[in-house]
């Protein structure tokens, strides 16, 4: 195991938390610890949590802290090596064969190789963070394939041989937990479950992300969103929705709308399901009044 201890001057979870805050991301102790351990131990970081708790944002913030570029691989069903790893430029190869005529030509040269996110991260381990987003959307075949990559950080291209990373690249995986991931994958990673933040923390996030929002507004929105999350809705509002709602309400207020009304009229940015809206509407006034109190 490649234990590094210090990465760009970060030698403890507390230091990482501070650096993340400077990158406009508020991490709790658990996340800071897990992220620090993943960097120090050279293991991938697996983040799970409900949609909209800031998993992808965490990866972006980590990349910003390390001063590296973020390479994102969005997973979907049927994603395979040619979309994740590398692909040959077949049309170009065919043209090259035709043009070469009688001369010999290496059609597996660099010019014909299309680099995909995982290969790109492997080739530049010290200047990139690889984000494998929503791994639960990919199928099990891809998960198995990923397992090999994440344990050895090497890729074999039959025509070119095996490529090995000079050092372990920083990898962040996220999952919405729409299905259970394979135990072997969890085992290889440092794991963290991101829960919804506390009201206090969420209010600070809202103010940090939307600078025009007043503190009272942020607190009211966070309280209302907290109540909405306890309702049996098909899509509970995430942190991004809370930020949007606070921003939208502030905008309406500046346009002349009165407070409770500004919240109520901008509910559409927080709840995006007709049935949820229909279900909550009879009690919306009371809920907002309670939250604003």
């Amino acid at each position: 195991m490649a234990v590094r201890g210090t990465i760009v001057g970060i030698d403890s979870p507390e230091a990482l938390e501070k650096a993340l805050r400077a990158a406009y991301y508020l991490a709790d102790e658990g996340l800071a610890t897990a992220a620090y351990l993943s960097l120090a131990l050279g293991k991938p970081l697996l983040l799970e949590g409900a949609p909209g708790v800031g998993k992808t944002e965490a990866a972006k913030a980590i990349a910003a802290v390390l001063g590296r570029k973020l390479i994102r691989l969005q997973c979907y069903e049927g994603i395979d090596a040619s979309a994740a790893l590398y692909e040959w430029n077949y049309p170009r190869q065919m043209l090259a064969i035709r043009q070469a005529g009688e001369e010999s030509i290496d059609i597996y040269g660099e010019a014909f190789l299309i680099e995909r996110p995982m290969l790109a991260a492997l080739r530049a381990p010290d200047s990139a963070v690889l984000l494998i987003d929503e791994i639960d959307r990919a199928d099990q075949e891809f998960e198995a394939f990923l397992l090999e990559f994440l344990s050895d950080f090497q890729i074999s291209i039959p025509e070119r041989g095996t490529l090995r990373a000079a050092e372990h690249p920083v990898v962040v995986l996220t999952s919405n937990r729409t299905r259970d991931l394979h135990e072997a994958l969890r085992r290889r990673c440092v794991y963290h479950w991101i829960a919804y933040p506390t009201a206090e923390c969420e209010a600070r996030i809202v103010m940090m992300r939307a600078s025009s929002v007043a503190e009272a507004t942020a607190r009211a929105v966070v309280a209302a969103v907290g109540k909405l999350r306890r309702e049996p809705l098909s899509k509970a509002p995430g942190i991004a929705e809370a930020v949007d709602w606070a921003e939208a309400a502030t905008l309406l207020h500046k346009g002349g709308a009165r407070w409770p009304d500004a919240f109520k009229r901008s509910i559409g940015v927080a709840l995006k399901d007709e049935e949820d809206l229909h279900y909550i509407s009879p009690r919306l006034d009371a809920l907002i009044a309670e939250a604003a109190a």
Partner: protein
Amino acid sequence: MSDELQLPRAARVFISFVALLRSNGFAVAPEQTTAFLAAIELLGPRSLEHIRQAGLATLAPPPERRATYDRLFDVHFRGSEAIERAEGEDEETVRLQEEGRGGDEPPLADEANESGLAAARAEALVERRFAQGATSDALRLLAREAPARLPRRRGHRRMRARRGPFADLRRTLRDSVRNDGEVLRLGRLRRRARPRKMLLLIDVSGSMKARTEENMKLAHALLQAAHGAEVFTFGTRLTRVTRALRLKRREQALNAAAHLVSDWDGGTRIGDALQAFLAVPRFGGYARGAAVVIVSDGLERGDVSTLRDAVAKLSRRAWRVSWLTPLATAAGFQPQTEALIAIQRFVDDLVDGGSSAAIVAHLLSLGTRRAA
């Protein structure tokens, strides 16, 4: 060499914590133990909280067992008393009293259910005696026929084929190299079929008591045959039993499930149970594009409109919703209860669920049906 194998005294307490976790059913691999020790060293550790966080990050206990992890941690490191708290109090169980609409209604005893069922019950009993012996046959049939007859859908992964809508450029290039770059034949790809998601929701309330054990056995058989399936039980709570029933040996699996479910033979609030199911994003996702099978008599204690809305929502998300009720023993069954009449237009099949043979027959017939 032997000196190196000796564990430092300080490390023993951590190793024994891992052993404690393992004996409580947490899967911890040796490499995770190594990472755990390395993490503790990295963190200092300056407090017990550091050790707890290091364990959470490296030993990766599943979130729904987080409470158990914390308890074991306290017992091991803080020396607190082992207080037995119910295992079921975790994320996999949703208590309907809290989550449901109209939570003011108390869960009732099931006397009314029993009497309402009396006539149908007598009829069903006769049939059940017949079905009892046939149960194992039915489950064997399910295991044998499942791969071929459970519903399938077109996947997004492509495979080589003689003909198909996509060109296989990789193969075409390789072939053409053999012919000096001359493309003689274009390789083809087509989309591969994969098993469709299945979601089984089993009513374990008092009015279904006589069928519950058989239904759980059936759920186990289905999970063994179709690994992508998901199984929930509901009564006054909603419980995910998929993980327990994935165990291969039936008795072991049923025992594990019995420990999880705490509302056997209680009241029923089907509408609230389904609403609760849809409200957890992770659970609700299991229904998307799935073949949903609900095994319940539809004797609803709660509000019928809640049930109707929930089933309507489910039917919009699912590929096909089947409602199997022990009341529908005869062909051309017309529902009499208010709840079943309310949901009739939202379910695609309302058929017999009174015997394992009937349920298996329906499950196996799903493969030949189309989306509704």
